[in-house]
């Protein structure tokens, strides 16, 4: 069932891609070229849709996929994704290394580490090492945009 949903999503991706390709603005002097800005993307999009249909046809009788992961682990993945989102947003107002320390703390905690010595060593050690190595040894500045 989930595999079929994935195939539907892939087909939808291909169809959406083809719609976007149709909206590419062509220069008047290249519109009549054998291969212009739209040609290859159109071929790729059509081929993807055909390949997805062929895969759906080929696996119509098979069970399709392995058993899915446990709910608890999916929740863990959702937490990690949320943490990364928070890290990305926090870069808008926090220093990179502070945000990285926060991300590491959240991720280590989510993964189940509870020894404070390890948590602090990782969350402070890595950002500090990165700061010294990247900004002081390699003299790189990180202008985020």
């Amino acid at each position, binding site marked *: 069932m989930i595999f079929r949903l*994935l195939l539907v999503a892939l087909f939808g*991706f291909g169809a959406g*891609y083809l719609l*976007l*390709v149709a909206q*590419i*603005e*062509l*220069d008047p002097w*290249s519109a009549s*070229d*054998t*291969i212009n*800005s739209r040609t*290859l*993307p159109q071929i*790729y*999009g059509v*081929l*993807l849709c055909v*390949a*997805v249909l*062929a*895969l759906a046809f*080929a696996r119509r009788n098979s069970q*399709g*996929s*392995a058993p899915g*992961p*446990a709910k608890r*682990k*999916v929740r*863990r*993945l959702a937490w*990690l*994704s949320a943490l*990364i*989102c928070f*890290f*990305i947003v926090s*870069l*808008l107002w926090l220093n990179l290394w502070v945000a*990285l320390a926060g*991300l*590491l703390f959240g*991720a*280590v905690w989510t*993964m*189940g580490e509870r020894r404070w010595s390890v948590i602090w060593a*990782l969350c402070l050690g*890595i950002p500090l090492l*990165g700061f010294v190595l*990247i900004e002081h040894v*390699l*003299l*790189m500045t*990180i*202008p*985020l*945009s």
Partner: protein
Amino acid sequence: MLEGILTGIATALTLQNVLWVAFGCLAGTLIGMMPGLGPISAIALMIPVSYSLDPTGGLIMMAGVYYGAVFGGSTSSILINAPGVASTVATSFDGYPMAREGQAGRALAIAAYASFFGGTVGALILLMFASSLAAVALHIQSAEYAALVLFAMTCVVVFAQHKERLASLITLLLGLMLGTVGTDPMGGAQRLTLGLLELSDGIPFVLLVMATFALAEAFRLALGEPQAPQGAFSMRDLLIPMSLVRRLIRVASRSSVLGFIIGVMPGAGATLASFFAYDLEKRVGDGSREAGVTAPEAANNAASTGSFVPLLSLGVPGSGTSAVLLGVMLAYGLQPGPTLVTDQPEIFWGIIVSMYVGNVFLLTMNLPLIPYLARIVSLPQKLLIPLVIAFSLLGVLLTTFSIFDLALMLLLALGATVLRGFGFPLAPLLLGFILSGLFEENLQRVLLLSDGDFAYLLDRPVALSILFMNAAICVLPLWNRSES
């Protein structure tokens, strides 16, 4: 030529230059091990240091940095599945599974030996045929490139396992489609950018690699992939049984020659070489994981050496890295080209010999470190996963400096995790992405030259031969089926 080689040896083996090669190798390895920072970044970061040296010393050090960074990239590729550079992506296909099976030390040792072997073969071919190879490379033009790229894509699908053929085609197409995002390489039209300025230059390759391999791998581990066995790593991992050595020498030999030839072609570079070598080995070789690590490592090192041929002999950079090196040479007031070998033989031959010296240093410096590096994979997952997440995000940030790219990376990583979960191979996606621009650009150029006439390809024997080979391998699965 012998006189030139002796001049090169005399130049490269002065104490000062040997020390600069050693320093370059060490710095390159350390920088290359950081996800996102590859040979280009390593060379760019070392430019200020090189300016304080004389041209010979500076360029010799840069050769060491180049090799060191390529090897450093392999290390992160094998240990945490985070290839910082495109040319080490193929190494991770078998290197990372070896690490997960408790053979990280052996995988790293094989990578080091194969790199050394590839670099040695590359340096030898370079010494013997540098000038004549450059002339041959000039005959490889857009038609041949387009045919070669098409051939590479066909190989990926045709030679995939029977059950994975359609899945490989789908991920290859997804890669090709992602590669079309951004500005059209020839027409200049904005494509599929959704009006976002951040996408006008396309999706950065480092971002895609980090998303589909490093971050997606961390997600997969979080979803319950088993922990890598806790191996006891020692110097014994560096000793490879003689029977395996004999087998791997054959693999490394053919991969090195293939890598060098591809590396000589301007624009092809180490990435294409490593993918080709890996693919070739999986088809004609025994398909073992050891061979899967050896082939791309030998090929990418030989290709790195090969890319110096057009740079030194013609002044044409064969890859992004050699383009940066060209900039360094021009800054020194040197003009690479046919006259370099006659006007400044100590520099021409000094660089070539120092590449080999760099290889020797790389091997002797890195081998003792391998047992310590290999311990990284036996870290508990609850520490390894946060580290991989942090390093991959940092790697992309250090390359693109864009917060938008981090969000895109998360999206792609989640997509890749789902695809991997359902058994879709992700290597074709990366290959499709790499080849997308190369294919379109060369095909458009061919049609521009021929006024849109595909028959132009028939006038080019090399391109025609590659297209014939392409057609032949398409028939291969049908032949196999009828045989069985």
